[in-house]
């Protein structure tokens, strides 16, 4: 790891802690967050030349506090005197105290506040908790900085308007608010994971960032089964990253991936996490998805996959968190255990469901099961339809490829009939 990368890691680790200290001292999320960003920028320019200070966190707190005061002064804000008074009591540098992890969690709750849109929650989380600059967040989402900046400033405005404060939500709200946090972390992960096949490396780094943030939440709430489940799901999914694309960038389906390229350490950690969570906490959707992911990656060959167990888990998942994507996966598991026709029958339950009526995955799965059932002409048509419906270039390429393979085969069928 280069010095620059180590510096970046250190700063991102410290960012939410410094913001937590400022928020507790001065309040005012928008102003504090801006001040922390400026302190981080100051560190990036000064530390490589002057060396990392002995107490980097205190350094950042001091610089951010000064920026905050400057900002308040220059604005002649009403709160000027209060803030200046508060700063007189700035504790001596180095007052490291426990509670950093709770600060991080409270910050996540604030950034994933229900008054914000998911896009704003994601952007603000990456900036305020992840310590990324607006430019970095913009680059990760392939939009100009001028597009990303309003998402962040509007999010901060909304937090202010909603009167949300930097403290843990009341106990009765906490489960719901934690769900929102986990959803945002999963969104960030998926954005990175799906992009890691393409040329968008910056976008791919979102995966690492999502795992890092989820680890922080897991450290704060080690007994929460769903937090552990989400972390496990991310690790077990990301473990396949190196094998999921061929050297020319084409997507490789899981059954054809070179399993020796899967990350064994991540698989081991993820599997241990989910096993532990499921034995000690109430069952939840992330744990179930992680358990299914574990079954997939623990088979040494695709044909050794424990589809019966996977089918049972999708059945439970469909009951506690029903959605069309779960039904699609359940249909595949049914096809693998009870035959493709049984899977296709389950798919019929999605006919007319507006949530998937135009979704390429429905047609891709139907095509796959029809192919397994030997209905090659119908399968080819559905692969083609799916290829038209997807907006993903690598998925489209994969689907055209599957249709093309069947072209060749249905051609042979015709010949054999003649």
């Amino acid at each position: 790891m280069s010095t620059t990368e180590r510096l970046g890691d250190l700063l991102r680790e410290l960012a939410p802690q410094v913001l937590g200290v400022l928020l507790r001292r001065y309040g005012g999320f928008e102003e504090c967050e801006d001040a922390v960003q400026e302190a981080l920028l100051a560190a990036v320019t000064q530390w490589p030349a002057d060396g990392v200070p002995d107490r980097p966190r205190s350094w950042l707190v001091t610089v951010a506090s000064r920026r905050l005061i400057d900002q308040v002064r220059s604005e002649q804000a009403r709160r000027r005197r209060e803030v200046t008074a508060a700063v007189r009591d700035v504790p001596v540098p180095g007052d490291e105290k426990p509670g950093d992890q709770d600060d991080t969690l409270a910050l996540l709750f604030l950034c994933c506040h229900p008054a914000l849109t998911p896009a704003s929650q994601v952007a603000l989380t990456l900036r305020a908790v992840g310590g990324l600059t607006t430019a970095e967040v913009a680059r990760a989402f392939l939009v100009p900085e001028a597009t990303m900046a309003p998402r962040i400033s509007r999010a901060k405005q909304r937090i202010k308007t909603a009167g949300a404060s930097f403290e843990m939500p009341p106990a009765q709200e906490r489960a719901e608010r934690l769900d929102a946090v986990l959803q945002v972390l999963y969104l960030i992960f998926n954005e990175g994971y799906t992009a890691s096949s393409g040329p968008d490396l910056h976008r791919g780094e979102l995966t690492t960032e999502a795992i890092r943030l989820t680890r922080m939440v897991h450290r704060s709430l080690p007994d929460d089964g769903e937090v552990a489940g989400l972390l496990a799901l991310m690790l077990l999914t990301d473990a396949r990253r190196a094998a999921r694309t061929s050297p020319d960038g084409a997507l490789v389906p899981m059954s054809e991936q070179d399993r020796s390229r899967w990350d064994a350490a991540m698989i081991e950690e993820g599997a241990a996490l989910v096993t532990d969570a499921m034995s000690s906490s109430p069952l939840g959707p992330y744990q179930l998805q992680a358990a299914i992911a574990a079954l997939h990656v623990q088979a040494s060959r695709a044909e050794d996959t424990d589809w019966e167990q996977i089918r049972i888990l999708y059945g439970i998942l469909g009951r506690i968190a029903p959605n069309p994507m779960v039904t699609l996966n359940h249909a595949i598991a049914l096809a693998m255990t009870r035959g493709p026709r049984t899977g296709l029958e389950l798919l019929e339950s999605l006919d007319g469901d507006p949530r998937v009526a135009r979704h390429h995955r429905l047609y891709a799965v139907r095509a796959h099961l029809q192919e397994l059932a030997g209905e090659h002409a119908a399968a080819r048509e559905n692969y083609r339809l799916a290829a038209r419906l997807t907006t993903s270039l690598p998925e489209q390429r994969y689907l055209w490829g599957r249709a093309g393979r069947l072209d060749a085969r249905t051609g042979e069928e015709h010949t054999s009939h003649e």
Partner: protein
Amino acid sequence: MKFLLNLYVNSATLPGEGLDHEEFLTAAGQTGELVSGHAFADPSISAAVRVRDGGMTVTEGPFLETADHVAGQYLVDCASRERAVELAALIPSGQVGGVEVRPLMDSAGMEM
């Protein structure tokens, strides 16, 4: 997801006539959904280029002789197709004949 909003106007409309999209620009700008936008010059000064068998021909545009042509476009980055349609609806149809909401391809994808 990214969408291109193609603004169609009738060829009889004078170029640049009433391009007041304040409501759309404010809405999409404030939410951080607007990525970029272009107003097109009149199609009568465009060129159509065709390369065939190593030979190139250049003719006066537009490429398609139709009653409606694209007079401008906006690129938005938003959560869903429904949201893109909602944004397109903020562009008054008195000024444009209609708006085509066109999803863009993405280089990201999930293995199946």
